[in-house]
């Protein structure tokens, strides 16, 4: 796995990330124990589980920079809780947890629950993992809602517009079926730039960023979900890393984000993660 250049690219201190990731994971475990103890009061237990999911997502993002195996486990657990309470954000987490093995139900679920950006990624997911042999347009014939989403509708803390997710999905679909030489990956580069821009802006507030108290996670799941699928496609199609194809410097934020996604893909390939239990 490539080392993520946490200091150079993210401007963060690895020991501080390790401390916060591990303590936050432990806090999530504490909350899950409290939820189990409150099981007789289902409303209370559900509320505590939602708090645990937030902690697991934060821990997963932080772990993704330094230990992808732990990150995929956190994302998987958080995805399960998000599903259980009807939050479609779980679809992003599920892709981060297991990018190399698509769950066919994720597409219907995320679209039905109204999260178009996750829905379009979930639609292209089984195509790039080669679990289905159809084009994206065919897949989307059954989900007309995805064709009506405003291009500018923004998602998540990174506020990436839907069109970036859509362009990325179509680019991955094209690459999956392409027999041409690798091309510039324009949509991938635009997606990376858009994700990195918001993080760069958050970094300007050094006090909160360096103490890991920024409202922005260093590696937001919606960005990682898209980038793990990019990496999956590049490897399946050209047996090459997307970072090499894009000639990205790992010391830059886009390079480090892609390296983080690479590691999640490697981790999930090594150990399959059963999300739905």
């Amino acid at each position: 796995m490539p080392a993520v250049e946490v200091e150079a690219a993210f401007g963060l201190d690895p020991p501080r990330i390790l401390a916060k990731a591990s303590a936050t994971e432990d806090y999530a475990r504490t909350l899950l124990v409290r939820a189990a103890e409150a099981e007789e009061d289902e409303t209370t237990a559900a509320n505590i589980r939602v708090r645990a999911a937030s902690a697991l997502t934060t821990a997963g993002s932080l772990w993704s920079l330094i230990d992808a195996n732990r990150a995929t486990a956190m994302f998987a657990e958080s995805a399960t809780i998000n599903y259980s309470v009807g939050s479609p954000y779980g679809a992003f987490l599920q892709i981060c947890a297991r990018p190399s093995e698509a769950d066919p139900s994720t597409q219907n679920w995320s679209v039905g629950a109204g999260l178009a950006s996750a829905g379009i990624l979930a639609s292209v997911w089984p195509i790039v993992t080669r679990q289905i042999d159809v084009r994206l347009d065919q897949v989307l014939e059954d989900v007309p809602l995805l064709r009506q989403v405003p291009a500018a509708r923004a998602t998540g803390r990174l506020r990436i517009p839907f069109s970036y997710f859509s362009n990325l999905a179509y680019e991955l679909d094209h690459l999956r079926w392409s027999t041409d030489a690798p091309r510039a990956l324009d949509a991938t580069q635009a997606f990376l730039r858009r994700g990195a821009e918001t993080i760069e802006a958050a970094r300007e507030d050094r006090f909160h960023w360096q103490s890991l108290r920024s409202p922005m996670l260093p590696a937001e799941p919606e960005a990682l979900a898209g980038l793990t699928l990019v990496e999956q496609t590049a490897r399946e199609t050209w047996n090459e890393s997307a970072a090499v194809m894009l000639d990205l410097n790992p010391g830059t934020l886009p390079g480090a984000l892609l390296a983080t996604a690479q590691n999640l893909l490697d981790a999930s390939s090594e150990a399959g993660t059963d999300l739905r239990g």
Partner: protein
Amino acid sequence: MVVQHFLKGITGIPDELAEEILRSRGIPSRWFQRKPIYPPEVIAQLTDAALLRHLNDYVSFGPETPFISTTAGCTVRDAEGRANNIATAEYVATDFATDGFLQNGWVFSGYVFTLGRKAVAHRPFAEEVRELNLYTSFLPFQPEGELVAKIHIPATQLEKAWPVTARPDPARPGAMRWPKKGGVAYNTDSYVPPEDIVNLRDVL
């Protein structure tokens, strides 16, 4: 008026000082810590501009701020993601108390009075900057769930406090467990329970 419970984490203070804060000293703003203050100065300090600097420019304004950050936790709505992310007061206060889970500190639990509207110039009332329907301008750190007290939180409003101890994970070098919560110290000296002062009248 609402009586709002809060938590506040303070890092690196000795146990004796924590006990003194809890029982008699209260939690002063950093401005009040530095010097005695006089009423006319308070009026000049409690302004919207100063509050915004406290919230958004703490590195430079922190040493002289008349405000005191506390947390009651926060729900952050991701409308498109149809998800609510929740930062609990326990998590935020413990994070601050331990400087990112790396040091020891104390968490104080008490209450402040809020009005359900902005009242920056009114010293007795805390500002609910976490409340989007009151603070409608975008505040990047709204997820910290901040309630901003002013000048000084008296010990009469501090119910209890507990030490939190950073816990290295013996199985993983550099990793930390959730900090150990020590025995809770109750302010039996000066705490006034809110039930004693809210506008609930008993029969004669």
